């Protein structure tokens, strides 16, 4: 087994709001190895971004609160780490790139300087060497004329170029883990592919583990080694990309894949969607979060949380349908 970079066990994160406690993450367990890409997919509000930001403790606390669970990042106990310890971990052990490269860089400082700042924060090197290193980093992410570009301001960069610069900044201190929070959502499709290629290339070069947060399953198929599907603050299914795409066992995963537009379909058929809305995490349901929208929903799904069922090759899913005592579709009288 490769080096384990990150292990999350039963992580629970809540936000204390005026309306009450929002249980954004309700027991998430994940792990990533060096040189591996884990895709975390799910619709908006399923807790994927909160999970990612909790790894770096970027959520303002309060209102956010880690209620329970463990996060082990390259030997650091993140849950117990103080803010000072986190400052050493951020940037050096784990780095992050964000959704909108347009707003993620300081508009009043030069791009090069922002990379230099990262470099100098975790390495004791001179200003001149740091500048040289920043130019090297910009070269590595294929920014043309890096020396001139380094002196420019973010508004002089295009969206794709800024995301490249963000990647350069994030990787400048050789972190063991890179969290990419929807890195291509704000970019147009041609640029998306380039950025994903760049991420794969960086992964091969540096053996960095990557957590890719996205709701774009097309992106996942191209780059991810493993996939975790999240719904209503829980991981409902994890497995290799192949398992998730071809041998999926959770109805939500199936519904998610089913709602992908089929480009090869010759018929003019409407896009499939998942009816209903995710549950309110202020009052999370007692049973399975997906029960209200699931077309296979049974009595037990509403009453008790489904346990995790694991196959021999590590494919995990939380669904009552997988229980050995579960009646067959014919017996249940399914609508499918």
């Amino acid at each position: 087994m490769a080096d384990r970079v990150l292990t999350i066990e039963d992580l629970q994160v809540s936000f204390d709001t005026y309306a009450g406690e929002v249980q954004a993450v309700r027991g998430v367990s994940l792990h990533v190895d060096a040189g591996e890409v884990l895709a975390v997919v799910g619709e908006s509000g399923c807790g994927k971004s909160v999970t990612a930001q909790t790894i770096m403790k970027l959520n303002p606390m309060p209102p956010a609160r880690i209620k329970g669970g463990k996060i082990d990042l390259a030997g650091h106990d993140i849950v117990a780490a103080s803010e000072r310890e986190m400052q050493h971990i951020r940037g050096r052990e784990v780095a992050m790139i964000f959704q909108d490269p347009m707003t993620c860089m300081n508009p009043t400082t030069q791009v090069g300087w922002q990379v230099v700042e990262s470099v100098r924060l975790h390495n004791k090197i001179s200003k001149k060497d740091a500048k040289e290193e920043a130019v090297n980093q910009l070269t590595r992410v294929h920014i043309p004329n890096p020396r001139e570009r380094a002196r420019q301001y973010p508004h002089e960069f295009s969206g794709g170029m800024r995301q490249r610069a963000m990647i350069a900044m994030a990787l400048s201190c050789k972190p063991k883990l890179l969290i990419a929070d929807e890195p291509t959502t704000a970019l147009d499709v041609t640029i998306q592919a380039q950025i994903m290629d760049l991420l794969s290339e960086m992964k091969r070069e540096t053996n960095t583990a990557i957590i890719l947060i996205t709701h774009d399953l097309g992106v996942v198929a191209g780059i991810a080694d493993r996939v975790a599907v999240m719904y209503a603050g829980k991981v409902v299914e994890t497995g290799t990309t192949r398992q998730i795409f071809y041998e999926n066992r959770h109805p939500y995963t199936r519904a998610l894949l089913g709602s992908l537009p089929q480009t090869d379909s010759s018929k003019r058929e409407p896009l499939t969607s998942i009816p209903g809305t995710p549950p309110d995490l202020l009052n999370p349901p007692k049973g399975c979060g997906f029960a209200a929208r699931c077309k296979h929903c049974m009595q037990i799904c509403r009453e008790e949380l489904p346990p995790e069922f694991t196959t021999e090759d590590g494919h995990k899913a939380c669904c009552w349908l997988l229980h050995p005592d579960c009646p067959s579709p014919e017996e249940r009288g399914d609508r499918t």
Partner: protein
Amino acid sequence: MARYIIKRLAYAVLTLFVLISLTFFMMRMLPGDPFLGDKTVSATTLANMQAKYGLDKPVYIQYLKYMGNCLRGDLGMSIVYNRDVMGIVSESFMVSADLGIRALIFAFVIGVLLGAVAAVKRGGFADSFSMFIAMIGVSVPSFILGALLQYFLALQMRKVFHINLFPIQGWGSFNQTVLPAFALGLGSLATVSRLMRTSMLDVLGSDYIKTAKSKGLSQGQIIRRHALRNAIMPVITIMGPTVASVLTGTFVIESIFNIPGLGKYFVISIKDLDYTMISGTVVFYGGLLILCTLVVDLLYGFIDPRVKLEG
């Protein structure tokens, strides 16, 4: 850049021209006569006086003459003080500007600090404290504040504690500037700190601050390197008009503290119908305001690289 400045200066001349013309005709529409005060003046004396100041000629001739003089930098003689307007304005402006600069430094430095701290420690004691100060600054008129300062910090301090630190009135020593500068600056300080707080909160919630945090910067570093410069923009914007108005002094503060500044001429000259003095002060204030706005716009381009100044 040079092109931009030249263009702005051309506009400034145009603005001043309109300003002078409007002022000139509007003050002539005021009822009364500068020479007809409480005293009765004989018809001959009145005619002589009017002839001396050129008021016997038709208004349009007076206007053209005044414009010609303005172009040469001559603002005329004050009717009431019988002195060169330019002389009076520049002399009293030095006093007002001296006081004003102190008030401005106090207002901007403390205002920016209070606002920034309030935003960083949002909801905490520092936040409540600075917003309390801001509330007082906005709601207490300067003449009440001035009088209170005189009563407590000058009069009572001398009487009760026998400390004669701040004189009640007058002008000349440093100690005499403290109370009026405080009274004059508190209003601007309140505006600045509220603006700074709002803008700082906005910046602290932005994505690039999250990026900075994810790099591993400490909160102090984030604020110094990334937040302050971006958050100060709105404060810079209001600096133009504030600087112009504070530098030219205020009638109220200068009267309360008996300071020989420019502020009183704005008010008294209208009461006295001192035509040359009215337009003299208006032209001066207008010119200063235009200059301050220009400086602020240039400063904007300097602080934010996204602002391009093109002619």
